[in-house]
């Protein structure tokens, strides 16, 4: 079946109340309703789901791997952004 007739969709499943939707995988489907069915049938067979999101893969805007250094390298040296960088005075006790 052609990609145009059956485009790719990304599937996000929320396993329990209070958790966020997590990417589970992808499926092919003709439209949104069938995508929900396919997601249900492929990814929630063992009680994994309380809620499903599907989104057309082509609608996802992704960062370019070529930009990896520009995007993510600068944060590597900023260790003060991690809580472990700071010493907690004894008087504060457990945080």
């Amino acid at each position: 079946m052609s990609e145009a007739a059956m485009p790719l969709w990304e599937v996000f499943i929320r396993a329990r109340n209070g958790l966020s939707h997590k990417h589970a995988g992808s499926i092919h489907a003709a439209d949104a309703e069938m995508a929900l069915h396919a997601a249900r049938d492929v990814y929630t067979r063992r009680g994994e789901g309380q809620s499903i999101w599907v989104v057309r893969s082509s609608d996802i805007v992704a960062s370019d791997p070529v930009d990896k250094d520009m995007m993510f390298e600068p944060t590597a040296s900023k260790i003060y952004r991690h809580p472990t960088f700071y010493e907690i005075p004894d008087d504060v006790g457990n945080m």
Partner: protein
Amino acid sequence: MSGTCESIMTSNQTLFSYVLRLADDHLILSQRLGEWCGEAPTLEEDLALANIALDLIGQARALYAYAGQVEGRGRDEDQLAFMRYERDYQNLLITEQPNGDFAHTIVRQFFISAYMDSFWRRMESSKDEMLAAIAAKASKEVTYHLRHTSEWVIRLGDGTRESHERMVEALDDLMMFTGELFEIDAVAQEMLQSGVGVDASDLKAEWQHTVQTILQEATLELPKAGHMQTGGRTGRHSEHLGHILSELQYMQRSFPGLTW
């Protein structure tokens, strides 16, 4: 033996027969759907059909186990499912019809799911607690079967010219097996009168409404009801059932009592 005892005996046999035929419907249809496993048009639909088949097997197991208990002769679900002869099966003829192309499989499932959806919902208020409990579980499952097949009917009917033509053909081929869904025989009549069974004849209008609403959206029409095939409930089957059983029963016939 007193008269009361005899009437209990008869009604137990009737209940056994009623539960057994329901179990047969689900087993045979499930076996048919299972034939798609690994063969469906897409991986997604392969799993969708297998999921429906597994729901049906679950319903069949519950029904066979209950039938065995009602019969009280020590037959378990496997013996009832695997160790009977062709003429002893009382499934509706539509359940044993071949998968054909995807359109035939979808129309068969759509017709049956539309029927079972109404059937189980009514069975939930059966006086028989076990049947009511099985119905409560089954109706959730069947509602999804109906939803899923309805969406396919709409897309195939209102799809390409070829998908439309194949749907028309499937509707024409399967229409003659729908009359049997609404028949009431002596067993069904007795179960109905005792508040255990569902009045199948009363489901017809609802079924037609459900089916026609979807078909209309699918730019399809329900074929005119002509001659209707019948016989499943009395063990008179189409030529297909024997072939299904030879595959279905092979393991238990070769290795009686085999378990997983």
